[in-house]
């Protein structure tokens, strides 16, 4: 198991390989430097190139808890950092109201506003001491009533966590600015509880599809890793790693076929690596050993998610071109 303190580049390279993540130094080096420097890694690239997977691999090879913050439009601090469990607070207050209102011994004169309210009904002090309002307030804003959200969880994790902030480009500038602060200090102040300082700086991985430009400040805080589309060789290696029982010949056919579909400009939704993997798995599960016409017809829906695309390949000419491409033959004229 790797540890951050004794990490070396060769060890990290080996661990990634052993975990089945296919990459060269163009990926390993930035990952390594980001961990060594304790800086967040911002991973950019098209869908399916393995951005999210990096965080997952890190969590496995360091045996670190993976804390994932999935970003979406409208994500705010409450959902990302913490919020008070207000239903529970309410219940607690109601309970207090029902059975309390009487100061505990020696606390009569605090003047905390615990003047007689509904609680005075049955006169005598109850068997359990009921807190004064000020204490009640402290209580309902205590640890017990706190709902930890991913960012706080990552900061307070007893073991060093991998914090995955996935698809950051889906949030807005305001959230980004907030995130920037957390990633600068690795601490937050919760007014009622005080300042929480990270026990261990988490390994932070942010991913983005570049659907919008992130702020300069945030980018400067991070190391930037751009992952390109895999070439045929890399995709083949990914399939070998990810799909047990896949025969070499079939793996090649899958890669060639997928590349043909991606290159087809009439296809609406291009399959990504994730779809190649699913396709290969399906073929193996169904015992296909060869991407012939029938195998294609029966399983193409795994990589073609759009109805129009399926219709397109229902055309015998297109299907045949695909079959030929899968076998490494040039399309018929």
């Amino acid at each position, binding site marked *: 198991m790797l540890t951050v303190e004794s990490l070396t580049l060769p060890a990290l390279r080996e661990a990634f390989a052993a975990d089945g993540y296919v990459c060269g130094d163009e990926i390993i*080096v930035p990952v390594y430097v980001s961990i060594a420097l304790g800086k967040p890694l911002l991973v950019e690239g098209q869908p399916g190139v393995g951005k999210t997977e990096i965080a997952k691999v890190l969590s496995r090879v360091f045996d670190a808890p993976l804390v994932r913050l999935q970003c979406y439009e409208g994500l705010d601090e409450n959902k990302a950092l913490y919020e008070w469990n207000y239903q529970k607070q309410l219940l607690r207050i109601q309970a207090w109201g029902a059975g309390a209102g009487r100061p505990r011994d020696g606390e009569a004169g605090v003047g905390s506003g615990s003047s007689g309210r509904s609680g005075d009904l049955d006169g005598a002090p109850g068997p359990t001491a009921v807190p004064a309002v000020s204490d009640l307030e402290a209580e309902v804003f205590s640890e017990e009533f706190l709902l930890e959200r991913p960012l706080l969880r990552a900061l307070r994790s007893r073991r060093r966590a991998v914090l995955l902030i996935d698809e950051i480009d889906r949030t807005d500038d305001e959230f980004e600015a907030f995130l920037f602060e957390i990633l600068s200090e690795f601490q937050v102040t919760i007014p009622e509880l005080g300042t929480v300082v990270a026990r261990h700086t988490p390994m932070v991985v942010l991913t983005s599809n570049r659907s919008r430009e992130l702020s300069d400040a945030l980018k400067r805080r991070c190391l*930037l890793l751009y992952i390109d589309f895999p070439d045929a060789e890399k995709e083949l290696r990914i399939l070998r790693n990810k799909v047990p029982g896949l025969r070499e010949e079939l793996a090649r056919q899958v890669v060639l076929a997928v590349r043909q579909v991606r290159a087809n400009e009439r296809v609406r939704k291009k399959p990504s690596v994730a779809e190649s993997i699913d396709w290969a798995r399906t073929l193996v599960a169904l015992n296909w050993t060869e991407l012939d016409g029938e195998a294609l017809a029966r399983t193409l829906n795994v990589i073609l998610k759009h109805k129009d695309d399926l219709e397109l390949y229902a055309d015998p000419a297109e299907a045949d071109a695909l079959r030929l491409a899968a076998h490494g033959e040039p399309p018929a004229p």
Partner: protein
Amino acid sequence: MTGHGRAFGAGPAGSRAVPLIAGRGFEGSLVAFASLLRHLGVGVSTAEVMDAVAALRVVGLSDRAQVKTALQAVLVKDLSDVPLYSALFDAFFVPPEERRRQIARHAQRAAAAREGSDRAAQDLRLGDRPLSLEERHRRTYAGLSEEERQRIRRFLDRAAEDGRRQPSLEAIVDRVVRRYLEDRSPLSAGRPHREPVPLGDESLDACLSEACLTLAEKEEGLRFVDLESVDEAQLPQVEALIRRLSRRLATMLSRRYRLSRRRPAIDIRRTIRKNIGTGGVPFRLSHRSKKVRKPRLLLVNDVSGSMARYAAFVTMFLYGLTGPAGRVEVFIFSEDLERVTDRLTSGSGFRETMRWLMGGTRQWGRGTNLGQALRTLFRDHEELLTPSTVVLVLSDTKTLAVDEAVGRLAEAGSRVRDILWLNPVPAAEWERVPTVAAFRGVARMYECSTVQHLERILHEVMLRGTPGGPLRG
């Protein structure tokens, strides 16, 4: 991590090791490197420089590729800066003997430039009096073809003769030549990349100049690549090139339109044509007949199939040119028209739209229909068709409803300043495409499949007002 300390220090002088600047160590070298990056327009903060130092400490210097990757991750946050970073890294981290060669090459180039500029100073005089020009004008002159330089010299000879009779003309000649050279620079001088402003340090300047040269050569190649065949790896470079070219053209534009508001522009071409072309005619200035007004651009992009890529690049260029608030309207069409201006100007929407355009996600499969698209344009956006509008249609002419499209374009033509057709199909093949002939009747058609084409065309449209080339009808 500490184990990595071994790698640096003496650092094996193997070919793959990374040499620092002698005597300056990690920090000194990286501070210098960052200053060069900044000098070339890549923003690098002090914190990032410190991170770079820390990165070198953990990666060591023994593996050049690793160092390059590590520093890039720390210092470069905008993909379109990667080509520049790469060229600068290669030129900066070199052993002393290579640095000496760089300095020698740089000195040689500087000497050649000086020589050119001295010759320019010799040539650019009116009789005995040197014209009042700046160094950049002399550089531009030095970069012109011999033929063009001759033309200017002949012009000056004639002007000198005329000037003896009418001394008041002398001052105007300076202005005319100056303006002519400004018009030619730097585009026509054929240098895609200007020499960097010197820093005053022999060795850093040599390195800068070397990096810019490498970059220019690479870009020079990219200018001529068919945009459809640009692959994913080249995208950032093409994007950077387009950004740079369009920004530069934008600068020229703002100068032009600022000037034209002050005084009637002298039509330098007509002036020279009149005075030199015929020979011996008394020196006269021609003023532009029409007032120069910055045109409003209306771009109509065909996004069916492979056209989507061209659409993305052309749109990118236009936006670099005018800025998001500029006078540009963008439409796309396949089977019908859709206005995308707002998508593009809504801040974050630009990149997304680029991707959306380029991803070819727009596939209706019912066939491209320019006729229908133009019908919609007239119905919903007629107010955009004004005498200051230049319409740019980007399409390979493969469309349904050709007759309707031709008719509507002709009608639009009577309302707008000009209609240009950017066609990615090579001009040599136009003969064989019947629809080309039909549309050439109603629009000026240009071959436009590379950055180079695009730049030329827009340069013409924006700076000359009306482009040359095949006339309508």
